[in-house]
């Protein structure tokens, strides 16, 4: 569960450079900039406003977790956010509305086993433990992994729905979680 990020096609393969790559320091000051960037790019690639807001929320939550858990709130460590449009079929370049957006967040923080990155039981009402739940509820595919030498990599995919982008029940559709 959550580990099933399929190969997203040639134009978003690991070989192609991302269309957008943001490097930011691990300072909460810059979260709003990252959100606005991601949201504006998603909008231009044809995602509906509500979906753009949710993609930005997932990126925000992921960055918060790197800042807090990965870097222990050190505000001066690098984080990378890379964005690829994903075309189902014969590509077509970035101008054509892609079928999905792939967002990868990488850090140089301590490596943890992906299985420990899991949301807690929502029945227990207490602060915290919501970030991973939100990321999984909002995105279509979510995968945590260790990077080759140092740090973690989070790969998220959000598929685009045409016009009537009705994803208000998304939080409910995704019941199963955990790494």
């Amino acid at each position, binding site marked *: 569960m959550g580990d099933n990020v399929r190969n997203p096609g040639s134009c978003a393969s690991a070989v192609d450079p991302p269309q957008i790559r943001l490097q930011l320091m691990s300072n909460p000051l810059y979260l709003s900039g990252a959100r606005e960037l991601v949201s504006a790019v998603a909008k231009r690639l044809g995602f509906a406003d509500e979906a753009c807001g949710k993609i930005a929320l997932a990126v925000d939550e992921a960055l918060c977790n790197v800042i807090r858990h990965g870097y222990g709130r050190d505000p001066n460590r690098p984080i990378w956010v890379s964005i690829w449009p994903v075309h189902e079929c014969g590509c077509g370049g970035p101008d054509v509305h892609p079928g999905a957006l792939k967002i990868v967040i990488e850090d140089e923080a301590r490596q943890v086993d992906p299985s420990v990155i899991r949301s807690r039981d929502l029945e227990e009402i207490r*602060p915290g433990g919501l970030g991973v739940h939100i990321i999984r509820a909002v995105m279509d595919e979510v995968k945590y992994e260790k990077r080759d030498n140092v740090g973690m990599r989070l790969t998220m995919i959000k598929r685009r729905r045409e016009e009537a982008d009705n994803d208000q029940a998304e939080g409910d559709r995704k019941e199963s979680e955990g790494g």
Partner: protein
Amino acid sequence: MADNSTRPGFATGGSDSAFRVTVNNTGSAVVVLPSGEIDLNASPVLRQELKRVQTARPERLIVDLSGVPYMDSSGVATLVEAMQIARKNSTRLVLCGMQDKVRSIFEIARLDTVFTIAPDSQAAMTV
């Protein structure tokens, strides 16, 4: 009774779009009115203000979110913590004025039924 203060967010004060928390003590209720996006940068400011007003154990605490276009889980966590303090103090905590995006995160967190949520501050005085 005159606790009517505005505290600029430490991170964004100076700009006209700074995160700010206004506190209004009406006598029958304390109304906390954050304005701006509540993310990991701003939530410590809200948390501090909520803690401060909760030391007086008010009968009713209203958090009017009409000036909040965006909230992430650090904001939600701040409100959950405020609710736990409120329960201990027998304070009635009511959230109101939620914009769509903010309501959406409460739904995703399945906290929309845990909090008392009123449409506006008027309704929040009596609910």
